[in-house]
């Protein structure tokens, strides 16, 4: 055995950085979609490594649903400052106020689907021609076939049956005017890889991911945090539990897990032993077997 090989994490890191650099080289106005979740945090740190000692040569874009965890917003602002990068915010509330979208009503109402319109509007207004995201192929069936460079037509739509073949590391970012690309540099990472990387690189993450005490309710097997946007059903009473979050989505639909994991090591052990996928706690994915595929086709993340 010789010394010239990389660990799997180092190889994934090199691959992701290669993809990020291709984006900057091939597109005129790239951007990084930043949700405040761990995947987009990893992406932002990889971007810094890719261009060091220069600054990250593209802005972070946050699609603000107005239903964020306060911890996410606090982290976002800290990180933008830390990386010295420009922030562009697309507001779902603004899309609602302008009549671009209609707010869902009812007990399980969510702004998740509305984000798509705000996202596409933000891309169009800023003339972004490539939007990088932290989606991973291991997350969901529809994502397993996503390309690194994913072509979107002028309506922002994804056509899974007509994707460009992607060979070796030769990425084809050619497009016509009005079209754009979504690019997923950490496509090949799993949830475990992301955690191991955050740990190995000592990257700070929002407090939400660590175990803490929180006022919650239990609905259809999902632990939901109380918030001004969560409408309680008759008979639902908030209780305090020790929980943490595995993903960082909209406050009214992101489920927590009971957990004592208050350090990165404990989280990694918990993820290793977990028998449920991280998206298993997301109410938006439970809206039917092809919920993600349908949302993706219309331009979702």
């Amino acid at each position, binding site marked *: *055995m*010789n010394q*010239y*090989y*990389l*660990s*799997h*994490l180092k*190889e*994934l*890191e*090199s*691959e992701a*950085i*290669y993809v990020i*650099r*291709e984006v*900057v*080289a091939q597109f005129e106005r790239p951007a990084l979609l930043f949700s405040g979740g761990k995947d987009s945090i990893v992406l932002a740190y990889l971007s*810094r*490594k*890719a*261009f*060091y*000692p*220069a*600054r990250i040569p593209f802005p972070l874009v946050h699609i603000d649903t107005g239903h964020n965890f306060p911890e996410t917003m606090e982290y976002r602002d800290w990180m933008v400052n830390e990386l010295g990068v420009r922030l562009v915010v697309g507001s779902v509330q603004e899309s609602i106020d302008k009549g671009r979208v209609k707010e869902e009503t009812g007990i399980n109402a969510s702004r998740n689907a509305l984000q798509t319109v705000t996202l596409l509007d933000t891309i169009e207004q800023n003339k972004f021609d490539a939007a990088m995201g932290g989606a991973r*192929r*291991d997350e969901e*069936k*529809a994502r*397993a*076939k996503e390309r690194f460079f994913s072509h979107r037509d002028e309506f922002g739509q994804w056509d*899974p*049956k007509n*994707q*460009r*073949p*992607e*060979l*070796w*590391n*030769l990425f*084809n970012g*050619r*497009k*016509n005017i009005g079209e754009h690309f979504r690019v997923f540099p950490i*496509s*090949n990472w*799993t949830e*475990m*890889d992301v955690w191991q990387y955050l740990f190995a690189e000592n990257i700070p993450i929002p407090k939400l991911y660590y175990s803490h005490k929180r006022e919650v309710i239990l609905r259809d097997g999902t632990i939901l945090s109380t918030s001004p946007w969560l409408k309680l059903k008759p008979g639902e009473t908030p209780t305090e539990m020790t929980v943490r979050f595995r993903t960082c989505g909209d406050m009214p639909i992101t489920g927590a897990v009971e957990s004592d994991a208050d350090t990165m090591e404990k989280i990694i052990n918990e993820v290793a032993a*977990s*028998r*449920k*996928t991280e998206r*298993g706690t997301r109410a938006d994915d439970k809206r039917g*077997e*092809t919920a993600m*595929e349908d949302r993706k086709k219309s331009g979702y993340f």
Partner: protein
Amino acid sequence: MNQLLRFTTAGSVDDGKSTLIGRLLFDSKSIFEDQLEAVQASSSKKGFDYVDLSLLTDGLRSEREQGITIDVAYRYFATPKRKFIIADTPGHIQYTRNMVTGASTANLALILIDARKGLIEQTFRHSFLASLLKIPHIIVCVNKMDLVDFKEEVYEKIVEDYKAFSSKLEVHDIQFVPISALLGDNVVNRSQHMDWYKGATLLHMLETVHIESDYNHIDGRFPVQYVVRPQTREHQDFRGYAGRVAGGIFRVGEEILVLPSGFTSKIKTIQFGDEQLTQAFAPMSVTITLEDEIDISRGDIIAKPTNRPESNQDIETMLCWMNQRPMNLNSKFYLKHTSRETKAVLKEITYKLDISSGQRMEGVSQLMMNDIARVKLRTAQPLEFDSYRKNRITGSLILVDESTNETVAAGMII
């Protein structure tokens, strides 16, 4: 240290490929409860009396409706020894382009053979593609051993037949294993039914196959992807060349040659983020700075003065045509090779290959989707390249349609 192994599987609906992948994921405990519940629910909805593990790998709606896999799907699992990425591709001839795509990044190919049927046309095709794409390792899984009463003679006959056929292939590392994906024999756990088999299980082979030499560590090649110029007060004169090492080993202080310009210089630093490295090898992404200020831009390649790639405008290549519209002589394309883009024209179709029989057909003037042919391309600017046999990174190219911007062909330089 945990390594990454990328492997590809090709197979059709009934040779048990999806079941095998489902079995690998299931027995290596990579399936989550909610995924399993979803598959259990679908299985019982379809009226099956067993859990159909193949449903774990069926992705898009149209595939589920038709019960076929139409695209490349990527799957992930890990054991304490390695992390695995599976490029799962459909096996029928009409999906040759998907197989080529999946194979392009693979270290290893799994070839499935139905023990009842032995070698069939599809076996030849998949093995040939693995050889064409220079996948360094092959594991031949003789599947459905349960349906031939786990008989040693059946297995031995298939191994013998395959060896006879594969002597013509350019794959040097081939292993065999008798399995039952449905029952799990010799996939992750040793079979209780085949005492005569003394070899390793499939998973053990995947965990131990020697992949350290899969990258070229001899011929120094560094395609420049992007020039890093901070233009800040602190790093006013910094000029770094960002890229991913495609071959060989680059060391600080070493003399280098920049192509196509022909300038030489020495490596001043090799950086990765804020780390200073002493050397870099494939597939590391790094930033290199040089002792001298010379004009270098994206598309250039940094090599060694004593070991330079070939340079030519006439490129002989094996080509897989991937588009519904046929390819004609004298068609023009954008050509992408490493970080360089230029224009190319199809000058000659030397011959078309029948990938089931290996036979060559001359006098062909047009290529249809999924055809594989040896062709001559003429490029607008010279390419700095190696043969694909020598280096899969500097020896590969794609063609892009000028009007639709689609990726229409994959090329392996001879």
